[in-house]
């Protein structure tokens, strides 16, 4: 597969970034250091190039119905300019991807937009087209991933950093923007869709920018550039899911209740996977995504075994890191529900050695 590169690749290279493959995209993983970038976001502000995220536009008389039937949340609850977090599930209720669905403001050139994870844009755009045709709905589905770049400006100072390059007449609207709301605003003369969303637990914004103008917008912000390394440590501290890792239809098949995102499932709506999830909701789940911290020294990483104190395997680490904020090794694992309450002693096998660990409530950080 040919590697896709974000439009700012050369800019990041000049800034001394190192790169990694992520979902078929060659993305900056680190600029300065993960710890420095992480701290910038927790203490002031950082900016991420997240152009690996997809953009799929859905328009037409049945656009709302199509999205309603392919995502777990209630799209009809959205007014123009509002967004929601949702799961995309199959008939069995297994999460295929997580996404943010935008009911776009009236000044945009499409009715709805949803954001698949890296490398899922083609598959999900096909899924939308196939179901539209199967259900005979009147809607257009366009994969606009190559038309847009996406930036995330995150941190307690994100708002003031954003206001600077925004047209003066639009500043009040930016300040008034509530979480999961979006408007069109002009940054450095470029029209962007700006949403008060993010993946860090801090206040912040995501900007969807025309590909050809993203360098102009990027250069408007004088703050710490951050790579996927810090994006990962920030989201793990919040217990946010990473598609393909904390759930994966092939390797780690999970439903929203197991993954701790049951709040995105609206059983009073009609969607693919609803009936299966209604049964899961009634019967309860055997395992849940559980936070833990290592008491012993070491760093938990994806794939490490979690065991009980008798050495019996009870789960596998799906995400783990040394938390830069807490200065503690933390991780996520699907464990039997009896391990759900915080403070239960378990072990994580780190390179053959069982290390003491303790379950902990999510998120790891209060925000």
């Amino acid at each position, binding site marked *: 597969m040919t590697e896709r590169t974000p439009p700012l690749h050369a800019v990041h290279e000049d800034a001394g970034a190192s790169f990694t493959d992520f979902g078929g995209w060659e993305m900056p993983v*680190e600029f300065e250091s*993960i710890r420095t970038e992480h701290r910038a976001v927790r203490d002031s502000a950082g900016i991420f190039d997240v152009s690996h995220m997809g953009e799929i536009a859905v328009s037409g008389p049945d656009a709302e119905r199509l999205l309603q039937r392919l995502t777990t949340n209630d799209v009809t609850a959205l007014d123009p300019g509002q967004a929601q977090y949702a799961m995309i599930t199959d008939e069995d209720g297994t999460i295929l991807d997580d996404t943010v669905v935008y009911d776009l403001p009236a000044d945009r050139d499409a009715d709805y937009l949803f954001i698949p994870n890296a490398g899922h844009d083609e598959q999900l755009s096909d899924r939308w087209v196939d179901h539209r045709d199967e259900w005979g709905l009147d809607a257009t589905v366009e994969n606009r991933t190559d038309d847009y770049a996406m930036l995330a400006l995150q941190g307690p100072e994100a708002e003031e950093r954003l206001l600077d390059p925004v047209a003066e007449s639009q500043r009040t609207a930016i300040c008034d923007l509530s979480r999961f709301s979006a408007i069109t605003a002009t940054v450095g003369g470029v029209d962007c869709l700006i949403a008060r969303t993010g993946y860090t637990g801090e206040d912040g914004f995501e900007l969807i920018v025309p590909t050809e103008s993203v360098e102009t917008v990027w250069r408007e912000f004088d703050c710490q550039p951050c790579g996927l390394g810090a994006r990962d440590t920030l989201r793990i501290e919040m217990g946010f899911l990473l598609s393909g890792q904390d759930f994966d239809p092939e390797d780690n098949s999970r439903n929203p209740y197991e993954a701790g995102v049951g709040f995105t499932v609206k059983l009073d709506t009609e969607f693919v996977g609803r009936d299966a999830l209604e049964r899961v909701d009634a019967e309860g789940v055997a395992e849940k995504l559980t936070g833990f911290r290592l008491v012993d020294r070491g760093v938990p990483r994806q794939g490490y075994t979690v065991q009980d104190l008798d050495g019996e395997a009870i789960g596998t680490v799906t995400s783990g890191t040394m938390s830069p904020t807490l200065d503690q090794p933390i991780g996520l694992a699907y464990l039997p529900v009896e391990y759900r309450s915080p403070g239960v002693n378990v072990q994580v096998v780190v390179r053959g050695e069982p290390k003491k660990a303790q379950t902990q409530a999510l998120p790891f950080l209060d925000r």
Partner: protein
Amino acid sequence: MSFEIPDDCRFLNSHEWARREDGTARIGISDFAQDELGDVVFVELPAEGDAVTKGEDFGVIESIKAVSDLYAPVSGTVVAVNDDLVDAPELVNEDPYGDGWMLDVEVDDESELDDLLSPEAYDDQIA
């Protein structure tokens, strides 16, 4: 980007360095290696009196993003361990050839040091 390569160190392909010091050799990892690893959060080292063998692993280094074995550039007996790394593993990032050293080893065969990569050869390797 250019990395520091001191004249008085010799190197393994796997980026550990050794520096001759009065019958012992001091061991650590190179500037290039610490940069590749990023923020070091944990270093697991042998104890004083343990034997290390050239080319075999003697410990583990963990950064936020990766975990890596450490390989001994020479064979011998550990006579000192840098205990500062327990509470300040970031010294490996800040000063890989100085305060970020790892072990002092009483070398079994000093000629092993001569078999390691010269600073020039190591520079070529990481170029």
